[in-house]
């Protein structure tokens, strides 16, 4: 892949190599619960974002973003679920840690980083405010597809985004993502009230 050429160019300038850090993680970390050791292997985008401290060259970013876009599986039919269930998913920060049971449903941790319903005062600011998201951006098919895709794999839209790839990583199910789309877009959702 062309991207590998980019990496080779900068690898030598860094004091501690990304590959060496991976070796340290393999040596000093151990699997626990559902957190298995394959989790420390970096994929191409993690490698690139680490290497370029989240500011990859535009051409490389574009290339890897298009790879990520291909991972998104858009379900047939409506992408809009139930905003009430979406609110509960947005509130929950559980899932995917070594202390979470493997088969228990995960949350989206949305409020950790985003403002959504105006009623919830305890929201984070790592991501942008999504207050009135549907009101500001409409709720037609285009925006539905964008919202679904962004939640499924945020890196397809912004390579080094801090937002997890919630669908791609298997954290959220198709139905859960639809419910979050509803929380964002449904005119009845508190987000748009």
């Amino acid at each position, binding site marked *: 892949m062309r991207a590998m050429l980019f990496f080779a160019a900068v690898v030598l300038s860094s004091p501690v190599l990304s590959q060496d850090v991976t070796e340290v993680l393999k040596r000093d970390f151990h699997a626990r619960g559902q957190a298995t050791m394959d989790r420390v292997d970096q994929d191409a985008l993690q490698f690139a974002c680490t290497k370029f401290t989240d500011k990859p060259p535009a051409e490389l970013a574009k290339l890897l973003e298009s790879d990520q876009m291909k991972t998104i599986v858009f379900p047939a039919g409506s992408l809009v679920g139930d905003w009430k269930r979406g609110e509960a998913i947005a*509130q*929950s*920060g*559980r*899932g995917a*840690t070594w*202390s*979470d049971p493997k088969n228990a449903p995960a*949350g989206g*941790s949305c*409020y*950790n980083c985003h403002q959504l319903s105006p009623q919830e*005062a*305890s929201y984070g600011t790592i991501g942008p405010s999504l207050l009135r998201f549907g009101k500001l951006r409409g709720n037609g098919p285009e925006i539905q597809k964008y919202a679904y895709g962004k939640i499924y794999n945020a890196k397809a839209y912004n390579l080094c985004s801090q937002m997890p790839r919630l669908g791609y990583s298997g954290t959220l199910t198709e139905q859960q993502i639809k419910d979050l789309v509803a929380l964002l877009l449904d005119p009845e959702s508190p987000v748009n009230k």
Partner: protein
Amino acid sequence: MTVQAVAALAAGLLLPLRALAAWNKEAFQAKTAADALKNLGIASSAESKDVLIEAPQIAENGAVVPIEITSNVPNTKSIAIVIEKNPFPLAAKFDFSEGAAPYVKVNVKLGESSLVRVLAEAGGKFYSASKEIKVTIGGCGG
């Protein structure tokens, strides 16, 4: 200022303490603030600016909410703390004798955002103050 650190003797090795006045089971087991007050013998109370509650308006964690109470009502004999939304609202009651200021600071648990009421007793009457404390959802979840 001095600090004295003394490890208490293990329970059981102690000489028996003076028999303590009975813990007011009925009041502490009451499930509503109204029942708790009734069991404390408080039929009515008057809002008073002389009862001061110092507490944060927002608590990052409901497991520890510091509350500092001062009664400036002359001859205050007791102070009761009622957390309205807790499963058992009465949290504490302190009786003060001559030589103790009607003042206490204590950490309490709030199950959820709640009104906290304080009742001070003086001259057979009750004086009250209240404060709404919000408990926020903290941290990274999980």
